């Protein structure tokens, strides 16, 4: 399996919201390459006619009844919030009008 290019490592870092210094980019690039090589080993196995498996246990999805239960108290829910304004969590500005 091919080594990751520097650009691919930079993209991965961006997607993971990680800031990496140039030397870290080199180091992580090579470490990720090693990890990818393990997948190369797995990928080498002949899986013709083997259906893809996405779950280790052959069970169907369990469903629950639509019964509401009490929510967390607001103080408890916000205990880990870095910054608050009343009962709202405060984060650095996201682009205006982009709420989704």
């Amino acid at each position, binding site marked *: 399996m091919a080594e990751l290019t520097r650009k691919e490592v930079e*993209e991965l870092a*961006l*997607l993971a*919201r990680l800031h990496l210094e140039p030397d870290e980019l080199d180091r992580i690039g090579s470490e990720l390459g090693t990890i990818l090589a393990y997948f190369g080993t797995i990928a080498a196995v002949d899986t013709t006619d083997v259906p893809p498996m*996405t*779950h280790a*246990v052959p*069970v*169907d*999805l*369990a*469903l*629950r*009844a*639509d*019964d*509401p*239960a009490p*929510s*967390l108290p*607001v103080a408890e*829910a*916000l205990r*880990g919030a870095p910054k608050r*304004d*009343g*009962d*709202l*969590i*405060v*984060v*650095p*500005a*996201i*682009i*205006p*009008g*982009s*709420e*989704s």
Partner: protein
Amino acid sequence: MPEQIEKQTKQTEMERMLETWEPVIGLEVHVQLATRSKAFSPSACEFGAPANSLTDPVVLGMPGTLPVFNRAALELALKLGVATGSQIRARSRFARKHYFYPDQPKGYQISQYDEPLCEKGHVDLIVGGAIKRIKLERIHLEEDAGKNTHVGAVSHVDLNRAGVPLVEVVSAPEITSAEEAAEFMRALHRLVRWLEISEADMEKGQLRCDANVSIRLRGEDRLGTRTELKNINSFRFVQNAVENEILRQIRIVESGGRVTRETRLWDADLGQSAPMRSKEEANDYRYFPDPDLPPLVVDGALMGGILKKLPELPAARFERYQKQHGLAVDDARTLVSDRGLADYFDALVTAHPGDRSGRMLANWMLTELLGALNAEGKEITQSPVPAATLSALIVLVENGTISGKIGKEIFAETYQTGEAPLAIVDRRGVRQISDEAALWEVIDRVVAANPKQADGYLAGKDQLFGFFVGQVMKETQGRANPSMTSDLLRKRLGR
């Protein structure tokens, strides 16, 4: 330029451009499902609750928590799947869609990707008097995100909405005008309310829309570069934003430029869109099957239950009202705009003797009943006049017991007091006089009392006929049978 002229100029420019260019539009509509609790955990779903008061460890994405899917969300999504004629997957799958955003504490949204619940359905639009069918690519299940509010240099996050179950309805790119895009939204809005899947209140964000827009030369098969419009959350915005985008793209291409593939935000106040900063959309969602959620299985028993509960759909009723009950297109369209209206009309038809009164029933219902309800800001479901009572009143008019004019007065009283129409008629003594002898007696008296007018009419003054009708009505307090009165008056007056 005055607004009116500007609008007209734009209109003409658009018409000229559309002779050459064909817009191709696909919509992605998110609909919140009306469950009591969230998609994957038991926190309540409720609009307008105090900020961050509807969360639990699953919603907050706490380590060690596991999602358990809500059966009601599945049932509501299946109802929509069946109503849109979709193929339902016996086994569908949840996937993780990864992105970092403060409204999504887990760092991913649970959605469906390569194995959605429903595929290849359709939505029927009412365009003019006809049904136009727009194909759907898919309907899939997912969870909503929290809500960000932007306040100067910071953003506020409320996670009450996070985890609310949604369906995303994706149309095929076969909508060809801004009006049709808005009509698609209306049709979907009508359908989900009809099926009681969602309140679909757009002001509460329960129905939200993104549009993919491109243009191509007429006759061309290949699709042009598309842009995605976000933030178009009203029927009017959909139409304005899409129209604006079609014009923008045609102007770019006609002046030798190329459309850039990008996501644009609609600003309803400015009436224009602007590109989102490209860094913000530099997303690679890295979908993969959610290991926490085994395959979602839909079996025959579940489907049987859904099929049994499915009501007749708006488009089917729209056609039935015209074909079977002879209604005008506009009346049929009004009736199917709301399930309550259509159900009331059906109850009225059922209660009413004979089957030739469709137009008359629709008239009374839409004019008198809806008029009275609208004046009070009431819904049809709050009508103080049951369908059987309205029918009883219409019967009195149809069989000549009272005139149509008196009927309206009786209706007003029934509406106010709830008293039965026939009881009001008898108490007020307003039965129509259809007895020929009684009418002759009145007519004789009226003509004898007005010899000059009678001569005038005979000499050709046609308008005097109305004078005599008026006199007869006055003498009988409006109770004289109008058509008999006309016939007898003609005989008496000699022409």
